[in-house]
């Protein structure tokens, strides 16, 4: 025998799965909600998404190549996910240059300053989104009306913003004008950021990801259950001042956050017990902000806060060891 044999430690076989495949599955899972956004907000939705994706991929490439001087890893698909998620979190009317700034914040500050894929502490898309929300509050909260519903697209408020405003002015929930009903919210017939409007399609994407073993049920279910129970308690005490829990579940970015952003592998805990605690934390903080905070919506901040707690959860919460503790 002339040629050399490979000698390496076991195991000698590897599953056919890869990080790239996982990333692309996440992208497939977002496609239904993306199509719906185009249907709802017109070609503007597509414009925002394409700019965001292209910008995220480009910033990752440029920063890795010229600032970090490492081999760019844009082919792994993670920058595309960040781009889509960033687009999903902004209004469809956002000007292109604001999107670019958001993409730069997401990739540069959120991801690459920590070392790139796998090293970031905070969800990059949310870093981008919150950066924009704080820097451009007006543009980030001007929601174009639904193309299908209104003849002229006018600026409208999101359901959560309507509620926040009325509660501030002491108007009972039942009297608030222009609130969509639950069916509309489920399908996505309401104003909001690109990807957050259709609860059903987001759930569909979540089911696909659970089926393909990209995520497990622990994080989304614990967030949604916490939101339901926590907001349900307040609603039970005073239904005049607090909306019913189903409304909380279906509105704003809750589904988007619970299914696509809180489940980001890099920034969420590594074992089921810790994931449930993380999910409960996100649920509690989200509802606290929605009910008592200055912003109508709280899921972005809630996820970022719990991202920061993730290393601590990984340190203290251990998986069930074989053979007891």
């Amino acid at each position, binding site marked *: *025998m002339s040629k050399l*044999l*490979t*000698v*390496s*430690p*076991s*195991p*000698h*076989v*590897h*599953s056919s*799965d*890869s*990080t790239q*495949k*996982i990333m692309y599955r996440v992208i497939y899972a977002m496609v239904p909600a993306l199509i719906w956004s185009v249907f709802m907000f017109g070609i503007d939705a597509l414009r925002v998404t394409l700019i965001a994706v292209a910008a995220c991929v480009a910033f990752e490439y440029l920063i890795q190549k010229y600032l970090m001087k490492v081999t760019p*890893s844009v082919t*792994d698909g*993670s920058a595309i996910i960040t781009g889509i998620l960033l687009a999903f979190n902004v209004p469809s009317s956002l000007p292109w240059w604001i999107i670019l700034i958001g993409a730069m914040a997401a990739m540069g500050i959120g991801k690459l300053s920590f070392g*790139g*894929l*796998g*090293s970031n502490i905070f969800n990059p898309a949310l870093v981008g989104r919150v950066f924009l929300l704080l820097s451009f509050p007006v543009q980030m909260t001007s929601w174009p009306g639904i193309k299908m519903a209104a003849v002229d697209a006018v600026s409208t408020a999101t359901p959560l913003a309507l509620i926040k405003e009325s509660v501030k002015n002491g108007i009972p929930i039942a009297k608030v004008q222009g609130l969509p009903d639950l069916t509309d919210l489920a399908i996505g017939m309401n104003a909001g950021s690109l990807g957050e409007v259709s609860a059903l399609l987001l759930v569909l994407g979540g089911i696909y990801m659970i089926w393909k073993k990209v995520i*497990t049920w622990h994080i989304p279910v614990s967030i949604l259950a916490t939101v339901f129970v926590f907001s349900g308690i307040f609603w039970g005490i005073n239904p005049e001042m607090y909306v019913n829990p189903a409304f909380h579940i279906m509105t704003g970015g809750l589904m988007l956050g619970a299914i696509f952003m809180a489940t980001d*592998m*890099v*920034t*969420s*805990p*590594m*074992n*089921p017990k810790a994931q449930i605690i993380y999910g409960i934390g996100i649920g509690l903080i989200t509802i606290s902000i929605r009910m008592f905070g200055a912003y109508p919506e709280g899921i972005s901040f809630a996820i970022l806060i719990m991202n920061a707690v993730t290393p601590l959860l*990984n340190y203290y919460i*251990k*998986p*069930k*060891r*074989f*053979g*007891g503790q």
Partner: protein
Amino acid sequence: MLKTFKIGGVHPPENKLSKDRKIEVLSIPSAVFIPVAQHIGAPSTPVVKKGDKVKVGQVIAQSSSFVSTNIHSSVSGTVKKVDFSADSSGYPKQGIFIDVEGDEWMEDIDRSETLVKDISVDGAEIVKKIQECGIVGLGGATFPTHVKLVPPKGMKAEVLLINGVECEPYLTSDHRLMLEKADEILVGIQLLMKAMNVDKAVIGIENNKPDAIQLLSEKCKSVAGVSVVALKVQYPQGGEKQLINAVTGREVPSGALPIAVGAVVSNVGTAFAVYEAIQKNKPLFERVVTVTGKGVSKPSNFLVRVGTATSELVAAAGGLPENTGKIISGGPMMGRAISSLDIPVTKGTSGILLMKEEESKREEIIACIRCSRCVSVCPMGLEPYLLMTLGEKQIYDRAESERVMDCIECGSCSYTCPSNRPLLDYIRFGKGKVGQIIRSRKK
């Protein structure tokens, strides 16, 4: 619902290419190299020298302590030399080279095929005979069997578990043995039960071997106390702790032996060897070895004399395929890649797997995305991503408190990692270092 172990596990493609191939007796090679360390524990001491004539079954190296065992000649002929040569670990190990002349067996070995069912010896004699006959765990761990049969003070065995799981992909030697030597295995199980003084034995077999499950279940009906449990296919179910958990629901505590939960585990191959030792007076010098691989023209199961070079087995299975890139002694999950075809079959060699060039290379390593799959597949409930980093950064005290010593090195973490990270490589490294630290502390 089929039983299985409770934590973790993976299911690699089974690729049992040789499952329908009957066990063939491999022709005796012209020379053998028999290492004196074929078991866990102290290497045996050679008792032959250059020029000595030996017979098949003759002791050529003697047990040197309690955790050790005898080594017997697998051939008849002349001792060429006692020297060092590589075994499957790749390191030179002491062993005995014998040039084969004929096939002359020790006179007291019963070479007939007759099934001997009646057990005429008592428990202590069985244990003694097992030790004399050089029997070790044939599942791959090669722990001397007589040691397991004598529980430490204050502990009592309640149940004997027989491992017919064969969870490693490709390997079929245990499967074939169960189909072809079922009666002998059952007598072997009864002998082990008598030696341990237990009245219950359970044979665990994965559900991908329905023929073996059916055959043994049928035969067990006439044997008091022995039953078969069908298990869900899940790697590493053949691991001792996982099998105990799957069958009895008990968890062996961290750092403890199976006897702590009243269980002793033996492989079906070991049970067969025990039958031959006690009923036929035949020491352990041959075993069934699967020779397989996607490029192999005749995937086979051979009955092979210990010390036979790998090249002989490969030739009998149709020769070395042109594009062979890696040769593994054992299965693809826990086996060892060997560097040469000269390496001999030993008591622990369950298979020879030839991998094609394109299967033999590892994929490019990329960053950990903290997907936590390694955590969810770890059958010991450990956090491989963390243990890898602790090994890499040499933070041994933390590795110890994160229970690196519990790792059974099954490789499920590396197998499943979507970023192709060499988790087990670093964990093994860390485990080795932590083991050293623990041992030096005890001194």
